[in-house]
């Protein structure tokens, strides 16, 4: 691996982590699409900043562009507050307007500006190592590495300092306000960090794909955990994985690095969506099936308890009576027998003492609807699965 390759991967990984952190909070605040708005509407800020500084990595340009991002948020909220349009419409009104101003500015001055529309949309990670930070003649590495490194350091510091406040205001802005943690300050703080991050990442991954880096890792992590800290760590992990895997995929396919990173993120989400334990599609299907079987078993046991007469408890009769297909009946019978809940003598089914006790408990749960009884019953069912 050459030094350039390592530098590109390092930049990509830092960009991914810097995006994943605000991204987690944006996703939880149901504001993911505001990142789309910010990433587009910073363009006029970047172009104007470039006219002033002639340097895409200048701190002044980054602050100016980030300011455009915050203005976007303010405009969206102002339009929304009129009550005449909803938030998504407001977002759709504001960012194309600002973005198109940026596009016109570039087109009018294309000859003397090192910015073109392709780079704006997709970024140029491959060129990042060529623009180097030179201090007194010595090479300090790529400028974008320093830019995104600084942004990430600031983001991490703010996250560590204000984790509690961010968590509270994201979960319950009302309580945050009454406890003296202004949700407004936290909101605009998060928006500022998001804007600065998007500007820092813009050069590397462009206006369209930075959205993928902000939303996809957080959305994927959300499927896997119930803990905000773990969600943040997982988001960062997914981001870094996608950065590095995306780089090598791009190498393999001779394609855009940013495009490959986003593709990896998309695949990652899809795989987790299917296979996540707990919330994944497959495990939900599996759980539903199991619950159906458990409920069938319960229905069967209650039927046995309700009917003392022999003909109601004959194996064949049960099948006809409860109206189950043969496979299902057999599975329920097997499950009940395996757990010593029933005995079958001459094709007549009887509850064992254990079966009797369990059925009684289940009945008391059904009639009283007590929360503690539900817990106990779930525990009992858990024994069943073993």
């Amino acid at each position, binding site marked *: 691996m050459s030094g350039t390759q390592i530098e590109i991967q390092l930049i990509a990984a830092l960009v991914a982590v810097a995006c994943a952190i605000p991204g987690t909070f944006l996703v939880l605040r149901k504001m993911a699409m505001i990142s789309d708005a910010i990433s587009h509407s910073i363009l006029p800020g970047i172009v104007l900043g470039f006219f002033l500084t002639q340097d895409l990595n200048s701190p002044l340009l980054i602050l100016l562009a980030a300011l455009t991002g915050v203005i976007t948020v303010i405009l969206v909220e102002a339009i929304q507050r009129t009550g005449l349009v909803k938030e998504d419409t407001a977002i759709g009104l504001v960012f194309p307007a600002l973005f198109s101003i940026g596009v016109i500015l570039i087109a009018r001055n294309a000859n003397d500006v090192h910015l073109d529309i392709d780079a704006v949309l997709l970024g140029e990670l491959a060129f990042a190592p060529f623009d180097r930070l030179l201090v007194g003649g010595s090479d300090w590495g790529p400028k974008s590495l320093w830019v995104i490194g600084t942004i990430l350091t600031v983001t991490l510091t703010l996250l560590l300092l204000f*984790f*509690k406040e961010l968590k509270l205001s994201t*979960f319950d802005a009302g*309580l945050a306000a*009454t406890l*003296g943690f202004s949700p407004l300050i936290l909101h605009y703080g998060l928006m500022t960090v998001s804007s600065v991050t998007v500007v820092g990442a813009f050069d590397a991954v462009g206006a369209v794909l930075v959205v993928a880096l902000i939303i996809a890792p957080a959305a994927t992590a959300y499927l896997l955990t*119930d*803990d905000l800290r773990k969600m943040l760590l997982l988001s960062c992990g997914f981001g870094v994985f996608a950065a590095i895997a995306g780089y090598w995929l791009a190498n393999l396919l001779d394609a855009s690095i940013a495009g490959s990173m986003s593709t990896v993120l998309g695949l990652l989400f899809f795989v987790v969506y299917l296979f996540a334990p707990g919330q994944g599609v497959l495990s939900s299907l599996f759980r539903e099936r199991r619950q159906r079987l458990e409920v069938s078993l319960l229905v069967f046991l209650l039927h046995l308890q309700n009917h003392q007469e022999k003909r109601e408890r004959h194996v064949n009769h049960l099948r006809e009576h409860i109206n189950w297909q043969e496979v299902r009946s057999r599975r329920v019978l097997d499950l009940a027998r395996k757990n010593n809940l029933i005995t079958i003598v001459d094709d007549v089914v009887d509850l064992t003492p254990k079966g009797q006790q369990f059925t009684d408990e289940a009945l008391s749960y059904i009639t009283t609807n007590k*929360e503690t009884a539900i817990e106990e019953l779930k525990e009992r069912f858990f024994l069943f699965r073993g």
Partner: protein
Amino acid sequence: MNNPAPSTRPPAIQIDDLTVAYNYKPVLWDIDLTIPEGVLMAIVGPNGAGKSTLIKSILGIIKPIAGSVQVFGKPYKKQVDKVAYVPQKGSVDWDFPTVALDVVMMGTYGGLGWIKRPGQKEKKRALEALEKVGMLSFRDRQISQLSGGQQQRIFLARALVQDAAIYLMDEPFQGVDATTERAIVNILKELRQSGKTLVVVHHDLQTVPEYFDWVTFLNVKSIASGPIRDIFNDDNLTKTYGINYKVATKG
């Protein structure tokens, strides 16, 4: 705290000429209301009467266009630590990635202030509050896995942790079963016993005389406010709800 407030002490909450409007529509109109210290008060009124808005205005979440609110004689902003708020259950996203204990711990954040993290002391208080509302065994449960009644208890525990002098509750009995309602009422009465002031938005008129000792009738304007036995009658109910009411005062 157990002694009744001497007359020189300012009331728990003093509301003067409070008006709140969304666009042109007044939601609360010229409210004058004094809530004495140590009462267990219900706010009743029809839908759209401004009950939630009144609580949010006291807390400064909603800015009134006129009037003032004083908490123990000072603006709310200076008394933040004296007031605990139990919002409506539906006001938060219960899919948020966290567990019951963590939500209760949030009640301690106000005392901690900015930046400082909760530690063992805060955790211990949160566990005590969970035990008080009968939810200790659910402390590590993801909050979306809790029933509606359990979520309401978690909110109550979070308010208990704040150890405030005034508790403002927005429909704590909404969507809870009889057992939970009984448990919450007992905690409210216990809090009142220890000298706290409780203001509760309440919907079930039948239970008002049984649960509360003070009542405010609200329908955009403040209709009446005072002890249950003096003012909880058909006359005030009719004025508030606009139809003839015959539920009233058996108790």
